[in-house]
């Protein structure tokens, strides 16, 4: 009976069973996710309505500023509000999960110092909240397409791939910052700034066609979020929305490389998290 649970503790010795442990703790992953979702809007007046109001308000402001004031053009045949909202849907999913993951270890510091489980569970469970928000925003988008009489493209079958890519990218960036955040609290200050600036560096309010033929185009395309947002839009709005399928290669390779490097870094640091909290 006992032999199934025999373990050896030594410096750097938790490697062997790490992934098995992670799998054994999948119930905890589910429960932590559920906790984050159910406490999200406790003691708020509007509750879940916030998840609906926020994207609608952001979209309205962006339509007013970029389309009405700055006269930014969308791709031909695509209504500007729909372009913004589709970009916003996937960008917010990325930025929310990225922010949550980055702070996940510190937020759960009471657990880190009192109980053992694979620390990777904390960043993983913090994805849930962002995903629920994503589903809500996506629902709003679908309602908007009916309003604008815009048919949903058959490309939508590829949508899960892009959601998965977003997930991988946010985990890749997030894990690195989560581990770094334990050591340097500067990260907590940096992240809101990164997210704010990031939104202008990716094609949310404008179309990637604007970057075509410029000197910075090749650097611009290195950003995995560019390919993801363009691809996401292409899935929903069809060929009218600009998407360069070539960018998919670099997007996939870059996001996987980032994830693997971050994972290695996170795994290297996680056993000493408690000493820095």
């Amino acid at each position, binding site marked *: *009976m*006992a*032999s199934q*649970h*025999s*373990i*050896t*503790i*030594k*410096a*750097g*010795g*938790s490697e062997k069973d790490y992934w098995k442990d992670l799998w054994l703790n999948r*119930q*905890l992953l589910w*429960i*932590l996710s559920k*906790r984050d979702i*159910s*406490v999200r809007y*406790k*003691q708020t007046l509007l509750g879940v309505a916030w998840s609906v109001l926020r994207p609608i308000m952001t979209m309205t402001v962006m339509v007013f500023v970029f389309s009405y004031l700055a006269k930014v053009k969308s791709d031909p045949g695509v209504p500007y509000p729909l372009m913004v909202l589709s970009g916003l849907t996937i960008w917010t999913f990325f930025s929310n999960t990225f922010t949550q993951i980055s702070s996940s270890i510190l937020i*759960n510091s*009471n*657990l*880190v*110092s*009192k*109980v*053992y*489980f694979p620390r990777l569970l904390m960043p993983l469970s913090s994805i849930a909240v962002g995903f629920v928000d994503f589903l809500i925003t996506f629902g709003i988008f679908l309602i908007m397409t009916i309003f604008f009489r815009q048919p949903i493209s058959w490309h939508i079958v590829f949508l899960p791939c892009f959601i998965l890519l977003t997930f991988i990218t946010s985990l890749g960036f997030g894990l690195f910052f989560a581990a770094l955040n*334990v*050591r*340097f*609290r*500067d990260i907590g200050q940096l992240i809101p700034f990164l997210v704010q600036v990031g939104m202008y560096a990716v094609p949310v309010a404008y179309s990637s066609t604007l970057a075509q033929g410029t000197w910075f185009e090749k650097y611009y395309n290195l950003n995995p979020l560019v390919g993801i947002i363009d691809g996401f839009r292409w899935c929903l709005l069809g060929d009218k929305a600009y998407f360069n399928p070539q960018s998919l290669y670099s997007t996939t390779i870059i996001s996987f490389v980032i994830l693997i490097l971050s994972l290695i870094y996170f795994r290297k640091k996680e*056993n*000493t998290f*408690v*000493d*820095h*909290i």
Partner: protein
Amino acid sequence: MPVIVAENISKKYIIDHQRKSGAPSLRDIVTEKVDKLFSRKQGNSDFAEKEEFWALRDVNFSIDQGDRIGIVGHNGAGKSTLLKILSRITEPTTGQIKIDGRIASLLEVGTGFHPELTGRENIFLNGAILGMAKSEIRQSFDAIVDFAGVEKFLDTPVKRYSSGMYVRLGFAIAAHLNPEILIVDEVLAVGDTEFQKKCLGKMRDVSESGRTLLFVSHNLTAIQALCNKSFYFEKGMLIDQGETTHIVTNYLSKVSHKTLEKHWDNIDNAPGNDQVRVKRFKLFPEYQDDLNHIDVRTPINFQFEFWNLVEGASLNLSMHLYTFTGECIFNVGTQAETFSKGLVSGVCEIPGHFLNDGSYVVSMMIVKDTSTVLYNMEEALIFDIEDYRENVTWYGKWPGYIRPQLNFSIRQTEHVVND
């Protein structure tokens, strides 16, 4: 059959004297690197501010199945570090431990409780965090609720619980873990006597069913009641192990006896921090000059002096009195007052005819805004009270921690007249 075998366990921490508290900011690291660069150029290295600290050093032991091990030692002796390593919260710097069996550790009551969630939700959350499967939790759900006595409040958020209910629920969940090895750290310090008894009973059940228990506590009475073997740690080393009665006697004899006064004349090396520094702790009996014999009749004055370094700080003192075996007798606090920079002094008087004979330990906290503990001096003072009896013919040990003189009298209320 040994279930835990530890070989050469050591744990090193690096203490950075430059840093005040918390994690370093990027700026600290950058300035440090720049400083390093320049000091190397000048050829002197006054950068020896980092100090190694060995929380544990070369610890070896083996624990058999069914053993109930008590772990004793002073604060900072390495007890908690050992438990953290055994619970896999942190890794040892050197050495290895082999553990055979499912291990559960209870380093805190109600780990991960979320204040906004209800009691019911928190049972599942906390259970999962402690490593229980959902089916196990469901199975023992009724028993947990019953043990904690919170039936009526199951659907109330735990932030509305009293602290007693909170602790009871936390312990109840942990008590139903059913691990093969249970590690418990000082959780009995919280909760009322009734509940402590229940917990001790539950821990005894655990050990009697052939499971292994490791128990850290300052409460030697509890350790003696519960554990058959004990480890005695000092300065990170396991210096003695064996039968509990033997270890506890040994521990008590080694503990420095009687500290009736402590003082620091130089503010720079006085204990404390950048907000307060301790100047003097002192006790003196009111009637007697002889400090070595304080008897039960004597009122005792406790005097505490400290430097306040923050202008306009709202401070109060909070004093705990413990028996020598670690049971808290009482806690008293002063009113909070606003002080300017300078010396602050507090006096507390314990009346005569109040404490029983025995050894007592005083700890003193300096509290800011009646909520933040600025500094806590544990074992600030240690003193003995001696017995004094008159008009009695019985000389056994008087039971109880205190021996108050109360208005308690007898008189004849009826005379039966015999014809």
